[in-house]
């Protein structure tokens, strides 16, 4: 087998893994969009906030330490304990639910029935608020996140591919774990939205508010639930990205990468988010591998957006989105 083809295979596999991480972020967008018609610009910042909270809780950091010290002239920074990862994840999830409640109570509830663009603007405000809030709460320095996920080269794949092709593939263990977790997450979300009472209620609310009320569904409850689920997805994405590249403010920018994923997959489709993520992941890696050297590299920065642009021209609803039919 020619070397180029073998390299391409490795690139392809790595692209799939990267795509899974894009898909994780895109999933959070799809969930809120499906249930409330809101495009939640703050999804990326929620992932950042979740990751920062997780690190803070694990390290026993005192929240708002800078604020407290500046106000009272004290010097407290940590509680002096460290919390096991699993407990910290549960605590963080609690914080995300609280955040969901606060978003609903103080922002969204007052905007019921407004134009989508106004709700979108509100989430932009929310994104900036949350970014500053996370900074104030946990400090702005880059932190490492280690919840005990395996990292580094997968030796088994390395060895077995070496035996077959005479060249060992480099696949990161973390990417494999992320793939498995993403698959579980999607399965759980599908089971939730298709088979549970709350999931059905969620779909009902997404479709028609009045009708949902008339069958006894509390809109308020469903929206808090949806934001909580989106918070949970953000937490998972935050853990994966945070472990991979450290918890820092650039984490919130991964939300931008989710945009082309959504345009490919469609804003309303969970499978679409997955497939879109994989196409973008594989596409940008293969493009960089094959065309990159000819144009001086760095194609990963723009490939996804150009692909999304092409999709917008020819299939604006995405691969799996609901058909846009206009009746005259």
């Amino acid at each position, binding site marked *: 087998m020619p070397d180029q083809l073998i390299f391409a295979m490795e690139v392809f596999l790595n692209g799939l893994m990267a795509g899974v991480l894009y898909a994780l972020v895109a999933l959070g967008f799809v969930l809120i969009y499906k249930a409330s018609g809101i495009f939640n610009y703050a999804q990326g910042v929620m992932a950042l906030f979740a990751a920062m909270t997780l690190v803070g809780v694990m390290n026993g950091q005192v929240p708002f330490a800078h604020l407290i010290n500046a106000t009272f002239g004290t010097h407290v920074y940590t509680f002096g304990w460290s919390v096991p990862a699993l407990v910290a994840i549960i605590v963080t999830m609690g914080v995300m639910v609280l955040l969901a409640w606060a978003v609903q109570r103080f922002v969204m509830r007052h905007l019921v029935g407004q134009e989508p663009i106004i709700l979108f603007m509100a989430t932009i405000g929310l994104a900036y608020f949350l970014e500053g809030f996370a900074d104030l709460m946990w400090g702005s320095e880059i932190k490492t996140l280690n919840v005990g996920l395996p990292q580094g080269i997968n030796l088994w794949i390395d060895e077995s591919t070496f035996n077959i092709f005479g060249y060992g593939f480099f696949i990161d263990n973390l990417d494999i774990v992320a793939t498995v977790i993403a698959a579980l997450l999607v399965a759980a979300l599908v089971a939730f939205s298709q088979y549970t009472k709350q999931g059905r209620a969620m779909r009902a609310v997404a479709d028609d508010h009045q009708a949902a009320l008339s*069958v006894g569904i509390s809109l308020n409850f469903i929206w808090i639930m949806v934001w909580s689920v989106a918070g949970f997805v953000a937490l998972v994405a935050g853990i994966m990205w945070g472990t991979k590249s450290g918890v820092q403010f650039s984490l919130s920018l991964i939300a931008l990468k989710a945009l082309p994923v959504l345009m490919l997959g469609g804003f309303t489709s969970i499978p679409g988010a997955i497939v879109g993520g994989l196409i973008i992941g594989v596409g940008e890696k293969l493009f960089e591998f094959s065309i990159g050297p000819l144009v001086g590299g760095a194609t990963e920065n723009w490939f996804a957006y150009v692909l999304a642009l092409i999709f917008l021209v020819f299939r604006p609803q995405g691969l799996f989105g609901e058909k846009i039919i206009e009746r005259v």
Partner: protein
Amino acid sequence: MLDSAEGYVTEDGRKIGGVVMEMKNITLRFGGVVAIKDISFDIREGEIRAIIGPNGAGKSSMLNVISGFYVPQEGEVWFHGSKRPPMRPYEVAQQGIARTFQNIALFEGMSVLDNVMTGRLGYMKTNIFQQALWKGKAEAEEVENREAVEKIIDFLEIQHIRKTPVSRLPYGLKKRVELARALAAEPRLLLLDEPMAGMNVEEKEDMSRFILDVNDEFGTTIALIEHDMGVVMDLSDRVVVMDYGRKIGDGTPHEVRNNQEVIDAYLGVSHD
């Protein structure tokens, strides 16, 4: 006809029970506009009660007060013998008051079956994990709910479109699906907001038949708003007549038809 606190017997011999819902001196205002002015009436177990009136008489507002979409400024709503505190629409629905809407509120993206199933949400008691994993009582419960739903689908003769997305259905069928969803909740009181609006004669006849059959078969108490006088007179046991937010008549179709004020305000104007 005999009318007492315990109920009465209709002209066609059905026995009507005690008071299910009582509206006492309801007044509803939107800013300076008085939509409903000091109206009282009751709805009894097992009867078909109609609210009629010309356009803008406040009929829909009254239905929205009953179903909790509007909260009246004055007056009391009594349901099954107890005064109802101000409630949100979903709480009213949970109490067993189902409704349909004048301009149809269905879940357009879902199939007919899924739409009707949402009417059963209140009957799903197993927890979220059992449901997601399809374990324990969840399966039995789902089967039970499906059976109830299938029975209603059969009853309303919409088997052939069970799996069709609602958005593809014609208007008349959508109205029927909406009725099916309301019925799936096994309501103690069913509210129909202009069930015949925008239908052709044949569809109207079908819908009238279904309303009568529902009342007959399930003993459902029904309150409906309707424009079409002929339909109302045939369908209902008792009629409230509204005009400009006031109640101008209340009684059997026969009594209402001969009420001079009603004739002046409504019948005299819209019919020869």
